[in-house]
């Protein structure tokens, strides 16, 4: 069995599982945020009216809550959702509730790895499609809707069809000007936005071994854009060290058997990789940066679970140091812990000196919610993960998806720019 099959077998009490088996698995961790949380509360209200007991959760110590999409509250409805969320965690005794303006908070997926909330070998589900992100720690991490999350909160388990696994091997270390974002955009361009649908996307090879934890998280994050059920990487010493530095030392690493089955294997040579952008309006609509259309950009956005981790900010700082941005540029670190480290390392000073605006952690404009949404006709280059019509604002705005290096270089020139071509 491969790692995903082994985790699901462990969690369902089966000796052996194969793709297409349907099982109920015991869940180890569950997450909700200020969009899925109020959605779950609504499901609870419906269930209560049907006579189903919703007074007690299966295990509130395994539940955590993030305030991230509409925070700091953009207007009254969002503010009320935050109050609902606070009342919910109080009623059910959920202690891990990361509130904005109260110490550490940030984007849910970022907190999962920054706070070591999820461990290798665990089954982790969340009320957000990018829950896949956390699979980089060696967990089965999968996004669900409100009804399914409500079911998990009350029953501690959920059904899954065991996915077949696509294996993506990276041979060699990525060149300095290429980031994990370029690789995952290339993969999505190759297999399409439904190329991983209902499947596992697993990453391996010496190029992945070389990759930092932050970069691996970008790969698993965007398996969602290929429709995957989960993205996963077998844990190694880097993951163990990452978790240990955040206080988590007790877990069992699960790895695949040497004769594990993969339905298809894809190989990528690191030395052949180029910086890539995804043009509007799909993450699969890729082009090499040096062959990208000449467009006058209006804005650069550096944020989200995909593109505002510490190393993403480091990459941006490397480009912006001593330079000025030519277009509106917004940087939103993905969590307070990252924000603080970015201050310590001098990145925030570099951003401000370059003329960029720095905002608080939030999903913000990535999902068109608030804080920098796009007007009709505006064109944005962004470190985020989606560029569907209207994703970041007006339905006639446009978003190009790119790595932090490419986004920063483009902020300096106002055009889509390969970091190697910046003087």
């Amino acid at each position, binding site marked *: 069995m491969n790692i995903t099959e082994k985790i699901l077998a462990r969690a369902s009490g089966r000796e052996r599982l194969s793709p297409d088996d*349907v099982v*109920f698995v015991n869940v180890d961790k569950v997450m909700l945020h200020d*969009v*899925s949380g*109020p*959605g779950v*509360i*609504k*499901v609870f209200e419906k*269930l209560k009216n*049907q006579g*189903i007991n919703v007074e007690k959760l299966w295990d509130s110590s395994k539940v955590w809550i993030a305030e991230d*999409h*509409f925070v700091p509250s953009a207007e009254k*409805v*969002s503010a009320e*959702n935050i109050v609902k969320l606070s009342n919910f965690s109080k009623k059910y005794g959920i202690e891990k509730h990361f509130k904005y303006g109260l110490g550490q908070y940030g984007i849910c997926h970022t907190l999962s790895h920054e706070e070591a909330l999820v461990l290798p070998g665990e089954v982790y589900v969340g*009320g*957000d*499609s990018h*829950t896949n992100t956390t699979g980089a720690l060696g967990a089965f991490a999968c*996004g*669900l*809707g*409100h*009804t*399914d999350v409500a*079911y998990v909160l009350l029953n501690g388990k959920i*059904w899954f*069809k065991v996915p077949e696994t696509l294996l993506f091997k990276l041979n060699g270390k990525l060149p300095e000007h290429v980031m994990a974002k370029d690789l995952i955009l290339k993969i999505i361009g190759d297999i399409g*936005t*439904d190329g991983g*649908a*209902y499947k596992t996307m697993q990453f391996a090879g010496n190029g992945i071994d070389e990759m930092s934890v932050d970069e691996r998280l970008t790969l698993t994050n965007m398996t969602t854009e290929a*429709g995957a*059920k989960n993205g996963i990487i077998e844990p190694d010493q880097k993951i163990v060290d990452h978790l240990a530095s955040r206080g988590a030392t007790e877990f069992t690493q699960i790895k695949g058997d040497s004769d594990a089955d993969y339905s298809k294997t894809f190989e990528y040579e690191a030395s052949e990789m180029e910086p890539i952008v995804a043009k509007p309006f*799909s993450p699969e609509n890729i082009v090499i940066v040096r062959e990208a259309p000449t467009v006058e950009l209006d804005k650069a956005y550096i944020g989200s679970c995909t593109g505002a981790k510490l190393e993403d900010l480091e990459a941006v700082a490397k480009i912006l140091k001593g330079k000025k941005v030519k277009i509106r540029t917004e940087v939103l670190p993905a969590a307070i812990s990252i924000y603080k480290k970015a201050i310590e390392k001098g990145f925030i000073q570099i951003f401000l000196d370059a003329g960029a605006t720095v905002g608080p952690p939030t999903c913000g404009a990535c*999902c*068109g*919610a608030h804080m920098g*949404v796009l007007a009709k006709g505006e064109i944005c280059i962004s470190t985020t993960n*989606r560029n*569907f*019509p*209207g*994703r970041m604002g007006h*339905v006639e705005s446009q978003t190009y998806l790119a790595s932090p290096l490419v986004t920063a270089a483009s902020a300096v020139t106002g055009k889509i720019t390969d970091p190697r071509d910046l003087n």
Partner: protein
Amino acid sequence: MKGNVIKYERDNIDTDVILPGTYLKLHDYDELASHAMEGIDPEFHAKVKDGDFIVSGKNFGCGSSREHAPIALSHSGIKAVLALSFARIFYRNSVDGAFLLPIEIDEEAYKNIANGDELNISVETNEIKNVTKNQTYQMKPFSEIIGKIIAAGGLFKFKP
């Protein structure tokens, strides 16, 4: 199950166009319905009738996990979406929350069903009758677990 078709002849209709992100803060089901499909068809709310079906291409419902998407469609009156394929979270949400039926159709059905056609769908026989065109198509049967959850009326009523 009888109704008329609203057809979107394209692939990858994502949940951001089904229910744009700015409305994610809303949780009143009728209010959500009033914004359904706003990202692709601002006329949808005015034209949709109770019992209608949506017909579309590949990877319907891709993107965000927002359950707002099937909720908004279902509370607009949509009883089923017929598509060449579905993204997984939209599919699960539709079935587990008992909002609407996600029905997989083949290229032939997709090509032949036109906007405004009247369909009569039987999930017992997996048959889709096009009353307007006097044609019959086969839908892809639901898998065992999906069939059972649908028959139970959603995940909470399903006994594993």
